[in-house]
């Protein structure tokens, strides 16, 4: 019977893996948001009843988005490894995982964003149109600002989903918490590492979720009790 890993080592493992996870997920979330929000806006603008309806563009964009969303992440990860190697100069390491994570999340974010923007009432949008506002102004001040709380929540959902995806990063040597739980914990029958990681992941995702919910509420001006 092998003696259990000392707690100090477990913590050291967790700290390192947490850093890797936050790095991978953080950077890919930023990229996915920067590219996914415009995709969502474009989807909504070109949709029927949108500000710039265009059935052909919308259909193509929808098709690509849904294709991206339905692709299992593990397949994307492997397929993109060669592309990743070109971009980040090597297919091993946390940085290499960012590309497939971001690429996988863009259509995810795009669809979420479009659904959220489509919830802004048509009378509100039309009222803005009648003020002579430009399309850009309406996108910024009406569509995005009116749905900001929901958009913040959507980014939170994306972060949690990406933490899940990043667990598969071990396959290409990406590291992170999922990788720690699988390789050090599960495959080496190290229960202490496995369950510590599971518990820590639960805490981490809860805190992140809570943070986004709080932020969303802070930006929401609906139904506040008083001025």
């Amino acid at each position, binding site marked *: 019977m092998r003696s259990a890993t000392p707690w100090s080592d477990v913590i050291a493992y967790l700290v390192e893996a947490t850093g890797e996870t936050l790095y991978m997920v953080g950077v890919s979330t930023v990229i996915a948001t920067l590219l996914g929000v415009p995709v969502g806006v474009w989807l909504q603008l070109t949709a029927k009843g949108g500000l710039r309806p265009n059935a052909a563009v919308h259909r193509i964009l929808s098709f690509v988005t849904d294709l991206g969303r339905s692709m299992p992440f593990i397949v994307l990860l492997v397929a993109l490894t060669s592309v990743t190697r070109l971009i980040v100069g090597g297919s091993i390491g946390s940085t290499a995982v960012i590309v497939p994570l971001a690429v996988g999340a863009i259509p995810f974010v795009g669809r979420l964003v479009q659904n959220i923007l489509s919830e802004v*009432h048509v*009378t*509100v949008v*039309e*009222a*803005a*149109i*009648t*003020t*002579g*506002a*430009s399309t850009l*102004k309406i996108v910024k*001040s*009406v569509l995005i*600002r*009116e749905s*900001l709380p929901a958009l913040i929540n959507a980014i939170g959902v994306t972060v949690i989903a990406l933490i899940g995806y990043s667990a598969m990063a071990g396959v290409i040597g990406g590291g992170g918490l999922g990788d720690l739980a699988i390789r050090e914990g599960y495959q080496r029958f190290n229960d202490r590492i496995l369950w510590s990681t599971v518990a820590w992941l639960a805490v981490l995702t809860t805190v992140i979720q809570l943070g986004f919910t709080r932020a969303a509420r802070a*930006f*929401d*001006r*609906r*139904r*506040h009790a*008083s*001025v």
Partner: protein
Amino acid sequence: MITVENLTKSFQGVSALNGVTLDVEAGTVLGVVGPSGAGKSTLARCVALLERPDSGAIRVDGTDITSLDGSALRAARRQIGVVPQGDSLLRQRTAAGNIALPLESAGVPGPQRRTRVGELLDLVGLTDKAAAYPDQLSGGQRQRIAVARALAANPSVLLADEPTSALDPETTGSVLTVLDRARAELGVTVLVVTHDMGVVRKICDDVAVLEQGRVVEHGKVLDLVNNPVSRTSSALLPAVDLNPINESSYDRVADVVLVGFAAVGALLPEAAHRFGVELNIVGGGLTRLGETPVARFRLGLNGERSDSALEWIGEAGGAVQRSLKGPQGVAA
């Protein structure tokens, strides 16, 4: 000020506007009324430049605005303030922020924007609600903010689609007061779409009745009430109940419409006195169109010179709508 010429619009082959022609004089209020499905909202959306008509023209100060694009279209939209039907405020912006939106669209710089927003809050009587969010306002207050927003960029035309449809009578009054102030204090030309004749009664100078995409009646409210066969008169004037027992004791029975303080107050006693007839009001009543008192009375007359009295009333400015008893067509 604003002229609609031969406007047509159909949706998938179903005609909504069928050659609508209207004009609204500068600084007046036109009420567009009509049954559900008549095309009122379609007309409003065309004038608001949210819908493009199939043919016809909409002229503001003589310029056709129906075929504009790009920045010219946006500039034309700023000329027409719109109060849309239903909740249209940004819920994530304060009342003041909502009013500022058209000013932002027009590129008005910050300090001027704040001054203008202050003026408009004052106009609609909601200065104390500047920092409130729409969810903290009542329906009537929200609607007044929507009117303030529509007026922010100094439009020459104000268009409101059913501005009071979701409001109780008291709140309706406060919104109508604001529309009336916009006309009186800012001189804007107002076009209000409504199914409520009360709106016409309270603030409209002119009325257009729309039916199946056509204008079936259009004119000054005070002229139309004098026309017994107009839909406006039957909708706006007090009803005269049939009361044969009461009427049987008179030589003559006639309906008369009186418009204005002088007519309502003095015409009937004067007629009775001049012609030495007994003249009683047996039905009908008094109402008010804007500031003008208007009456429709059913008169019962006794005396030899009853016909002359009715004739004189007609000549003196009252409209004798019909003579129900005695020789027909005494009307002026």
